[in-house]
């Protein structure tokens, strides 16, 4: 090899070694959660980041937040406030603003789809209406939401905002216990339900496999594994390993009480037909073909 060629090769090698060494881990701003809120017509976005330079052991967090006219603007300003390079690959959770509707959910979902690269499998919640200080509350909100996910076996992924053309269903965070459930129709009003109704809605949407809630006016707690099957518009709710814990006055027939309450909840949920949140239309069309009228749905509860 002639000298110039060798020199050129050496230069290339040295350039490769010195230039293309990626991004230092400690210089990355690793985003774990994104929270959106709406205040006085403007959007507020908060980024919860893993603090790479924390002295103590375990994961520590820091936050960056900003306000903007749109969600994208707020997010961009929050990003700008950080010195390092943003990394969304470990994004774990996204919280939509309290009281958001379908259009908001679609806009924010699309924004996250573009931002969140590569490969985040994140959970989506709707934030509660309480007034939060991002710096003080963001970490605990994140931990709480993840705890709700674990405890209630609940999961709503980002893609679930888009799987139905006529609406989407998202769990909503509540500070005290359990979770609420938001049914956001494309051509109708958004419905927020809570308690047993919220957990039934989550089960019918395929987002949970567990009921763990108080019923009968808070007199008992039901803990059961749940599975949903459908036959035309008859929805079969399979409850397995059901456990009742009385909290108040003793009652012999908790099962009947639960059934009654579930039936009431189901009726309330299926009254509004703005969107096919529970896929009843899907099963019916599979049996009878498109265009046939949807009969009144029924709930059949099976204890196993």
């Amino acid at each position, binding site marked *: 090899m002639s000298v110039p060629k060798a020199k050129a090769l050496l230069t290339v090698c040295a350039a490769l070694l010195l230039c293309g*060494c990626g991004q*230092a881990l400690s210089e990355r701003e690793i985003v774990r959660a994104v929270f959106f809120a709406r205040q006085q017509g403007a959007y507020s976005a908060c980024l919860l980041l893993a603090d790479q330079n924390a002295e103590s052991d*375990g994961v520590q967090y820091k936050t960056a937040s900003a306000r903007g006219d749109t969600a994208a603007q707020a997010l961009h300003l929050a990003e700008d406030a950080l010195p390092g390079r943003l990394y969304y690959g470990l994004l774990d959770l996204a919280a939509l603003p309290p009281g958001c509707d379908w259009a908001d959910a679609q806009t924010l979902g699309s924004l996250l789809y573009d931002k969140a690269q590569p490969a985040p499998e994140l959970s989506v919640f709707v934030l509660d209406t309480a007034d939060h200080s991002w710096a003080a509350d963001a970490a605990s909100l994140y931990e709480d939401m993840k705890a709700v996910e674990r405890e209630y076996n609940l999961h709503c992924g980002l893609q679930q905002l888009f799987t139905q053309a006529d609406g989407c269903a998202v769990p909503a965070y509540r500070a005290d216990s359990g979770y609420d459930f938001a049914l956001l129709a494309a051509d109708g009003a958004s419905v927020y339900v809570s308690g047993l109704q919220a957990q039934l809605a989550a089960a019918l949407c395929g987002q949970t496999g567990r009921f763990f809630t108080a019923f009968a006016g808070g007199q008992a707690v039901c803990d059961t594994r749940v599975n949903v099957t459908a036959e035309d518009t008859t929805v079969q709710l399979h409850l397995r390993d059901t456990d009742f814990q009385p909290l108040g006055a003793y009652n012999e027939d908790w099962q009947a009480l639960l059934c009654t309450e579930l039936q009431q909840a189901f009726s309330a949920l299926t009254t509004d037909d703005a969107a096919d949140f529970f896929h009843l239309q899907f099963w019916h069309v599979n049996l009878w073909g498109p265009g046939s009228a949807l009969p009144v749905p029924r709930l059949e509860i099976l204890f196993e």
Partner: protein
Amino acid sequence: MTQKPLYRSLDANLALLEEMFGRSDDFYTKRLMLAGIPCAIVMFTGLSSPEKLCRMALDMLDRDPAMLGGGEGLCDYLLTQSRVPAEPDAVEDHTALVELLSNGLSVLLIDGVRRGVAFSTQEMPQRSISTPMSEGNLRGPQEAFTELLRNNISLLRRQFRTGTLVAEISTARTRAKTEYCLCYDSTLAPKETIDALRERLKRVEIPVLLDSAYFASFLKQDKLNLFPAAAYTERPATACARLCEGKAVVLVAGCPYALIVPSFFAEHFECLDDYASGAVFAGLIRILKYLAFLLAVFGPGLYVMAVAFAPEIIPIRLLTKLAQGEASTPLPPMLEMLCVTLLLEIVREAGLRAPQSISHTVSLVGALIIGETAVSAGIVSVPVLTMAAAATIATLAVPSLYEQSILFRFAVIVLAGCFGVPGLACAALTILAMACGSEPFGYDYLYPLMPPGRASVRDGFVRSIWSRLAKSGEVISRHEA
């Protein structure tokens, strides 16, 4: 050296030998009269034993009657009629004479005859047969090849007791006229493979042949390919097993390692213990070896890629620790990993080359400097050191692919460190393409691993139970009919 025939005159022959070896003190000549004919014995004292010669030949010659027919008659008598165990072929030229003398034979030169008679009186100083140094095995035969070619052939023949074992001894085209032996089973080995191998070995011309590995590079089809074209073993038992598969074994004089041709990738992950222990355990160990090879080659590169380009594959708790480790050291992950890996290689090389009495010191100092001081001084981080050490240890699980593991590891670190995920992909595919492109004598190098089939689980990634293995032994020529 030209093929110059022997002189008819004994004095002329001796003068020539004197001219060649006269300055060597171990060259021995002894003039004597046999049946009234002037003769001379020539030999090298370190290689041949005069006592042996005396015992086997001269005592008997003394008792033989007077010879009719002069020198030629004596020569014919010794070669064809006498009870003296002379070599059957007469020595007719100077080249052969020198070769035989160098091989430790004694030659009787007779006045008035253009031929000499050779006697196998070798008595060379040699290393006794010992246990293998570099191929550890718990079970199976524990003897290893030595430096003497004949001994090695005998070790092989002792294990392979059929009439089909062929051992073709030839002299390599080297300055030192080193002998080598091509061994194969005449019924199992494919003829065209053996012919091609014989031809290629014959064509090899190198100044010196000190190891069977010198041949390997001449047997490669693609010189850019880093995978070895042949495997090596110092165990006669392993060589014997390969002969049973229809492969050829090349032994080189002065080298205790046999060369096995053709060699496949999977062979590097096999050992004698695999067949002595249970199939399940052997399968597990074999899979572990494959994983160890992958760890040795890709582990450090994957670490560098994950830290510098794709942190999403690291759990968040570990990520914080890695970030803290990285922040406390001055170098970027790739350079840090390269430095640590290089340093470990230097320690290994120093421990290997240093005199045995100080090699422990070298290892100790290396371990202390790298393991303790460098970390506490903040020069390298603990995760990098852990990964580099794990990869180095994993390399030793497949020692026969040591060179390749090291070279590939450096390439993977550089490519993954410079370009991230596509760099790792490029490195992985290049290695895969090298393995797939390797064609030892037209055979699939990745057999029986690729294409995946019954053979892959018969004796590939794992091994079957013996009753199944025994049903149909693996022979390379089987699929060629």
